[in-house]
């Protein structure tokens, strides 16, 4: 087995004394689909925020491809190949759909402020390339029909995929998706399912936080189950599905059902 791409060790985050993520350790292997599941309030989104630098951890460490990245800023982690989407969409509603995806290419743009302000020819060429690639990405995630639309004129389901396109703009090595299927209808969810599989096949490591179990069980190579910020168990879909602790955490205790 290869060295893990991401190594999380004893990671903790406390908000005002309450541990949202508590002494969490796990590993993520390159090119696989990893899912993080758990009941509401289990700390999944907090974990994603820690991994992508949105929050600084209270303690513990994160190593990416062997080097310590604990406490780095989000843009520094992005530069090391991490990209993500958000449960509460963080779309730039003041921009067009295409521009949203072009922002995702930010790290790969070559022209700086001066080139931009005086509009040197180099910029125009770069812009053309950027636009074409962004349009291509939009078609790839299945929102090609909105290439000329403003972001605030797009339906919810399309916005979720627009965010994925933006995340892909940086050509990430690792893509973290926070509830990509929440609020989507079954057809849309199925499309996300296909998209994740295609991404994984193209070599991107996918880290998925999701409530839709059918989606999770279908696509994941490896699942980490969280409860109260701690790791309840981890393993393959079949392994996790048959763990009684998981069933209890999800459906509530058997004792309750009996009364």
């Amino acid at each position: 087995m290869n060295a893990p791409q991401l190594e999380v060790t004893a990671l903790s985050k406390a908000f005002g004394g309450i541990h949202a993520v508590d002494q969490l350790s796990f590993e993520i292997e390159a090119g696989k689909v990893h899912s993080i599941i758990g009941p509401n309030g289990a700390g999944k989104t907090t974990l994603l925020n820690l991994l992508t630098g949105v929050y600084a951890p209270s303690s513990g460490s994160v190593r990416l491809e062997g080097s310590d990245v604990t406490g780095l800023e989000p843009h520094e982690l992005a530069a090391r190949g991490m990209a993500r989407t958000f449960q509460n969409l963080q779309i730039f509603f003041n921009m067009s759909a295409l521009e949203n995806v072009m922002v995702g290419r930010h790290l790969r743009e070559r022209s700086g402020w001066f080139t931009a302000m005086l509009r040197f020819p180099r910029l125009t060429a770069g812009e053309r390339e950027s636009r074409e690639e962004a349009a291509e990405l939009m078609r790839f995630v299945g929102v090609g029909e909105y290439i000329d639309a403003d972001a605030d004129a797009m339906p919810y389901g399309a916005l979720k995929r627009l965010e994925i396109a933006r995340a892909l703009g940086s050509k990430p090595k690792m893509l973290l998706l926070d509830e990509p299927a929440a609020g989507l209808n079954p057809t849309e969810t199925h499309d996300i399912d296909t998209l994740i599989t295609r991404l994984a096949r193209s070599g991107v490591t996918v880290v998925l936080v999701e409530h839709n179990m059918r989606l999770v069980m279908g696509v994941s190579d490896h699942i980490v189950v969280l409860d109260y910020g701690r790791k309840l168990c981890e393993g393959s879909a079949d392994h996790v599905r048959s763990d009684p602790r998981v069933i209890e955490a999800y459906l509530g205790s058997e004792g309750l059902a009996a009364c």
Partner: protein
Amino acid sequence: MNWRTPRTGGLALLAAVIALLPLALVNNYWYEVAILIGINAIVCVGLNLLIGYAGQISLGHAGFFGLGAYGSAILSVRYGWPPAAALAATTAGVALLALVVGRPILKLKGHYLAMATLGMGIIISIVIVTEDRLTGGPDGMSVPAFTLPGLTLAGERVWYWITGAALLAAVWIALNLIDSPAGRALRALHGSEVGAQVSGIDATRAKVGVFVISAVFASFAGSMTAHYSGFITPGKVSFFHSIELVTMVVFGGMASTFGAVIGAAMLTLLPQLLTILKEYEMVVFGGVMIATMIFFPRGLLPSLMLALGRKRK
């Protein structure tokens, strides 16, 4: 060439207005008003990059305007520098200052940022009023005309064309910036700061960058004012002028470069027109400000475009 994009059609329209406006300027007074509009518009175009596009408030930009004006004045009067060198040195100095203070200031958010920029502006203003040996204090100081080797630039007509050209350049630069990777980064910060950060944008660096650019625009306009009018007073450095500038930007429409120009034009003209109201001037002015913001919270130009767009559909 697509004439309907702002960079081509909008610039052409602005150039046409600037070229034809002298037909309507019946005397030197109106030339003066037109120049004042142009100068305010240059500051607002820069300030709009910061407030409208990047979403960072500044209630202290009159400070940069004042530093530009007084920097040019002091270097050319007290130290005998040629005006062009004074202008260049002042602009560079203001850019450097904005870079240094921008970093800690722009880490602040919301009302704390408003307070810090406001404080910065007021400190600059108080220093200018107090250091009267250099600045002439509250009475102001006179400034020589702008000269280039073998050429003296003076008179309303000459400055009208200089201001017009400078405004066109300012608008062109702003439009270029907006429609570029750097400009998209700024707009992204406004749309969602965390979304921008995870896309690889260094928020602090981008904010400081646009802060410096907007400070340079203001400083340059200040230097122009000093040489054009030949006399400067601390009034243009005051807190009120900072507020006036922000109001112009918001009034015309945030995140709209031409909106900033229109806002500058409207709010420079309005007090001239309101003088006929004499003692009611302030009441009406305040009332217009409130009403405009309530009925057009996005500013005049964007609201107008929205209405037009709806009609077309």
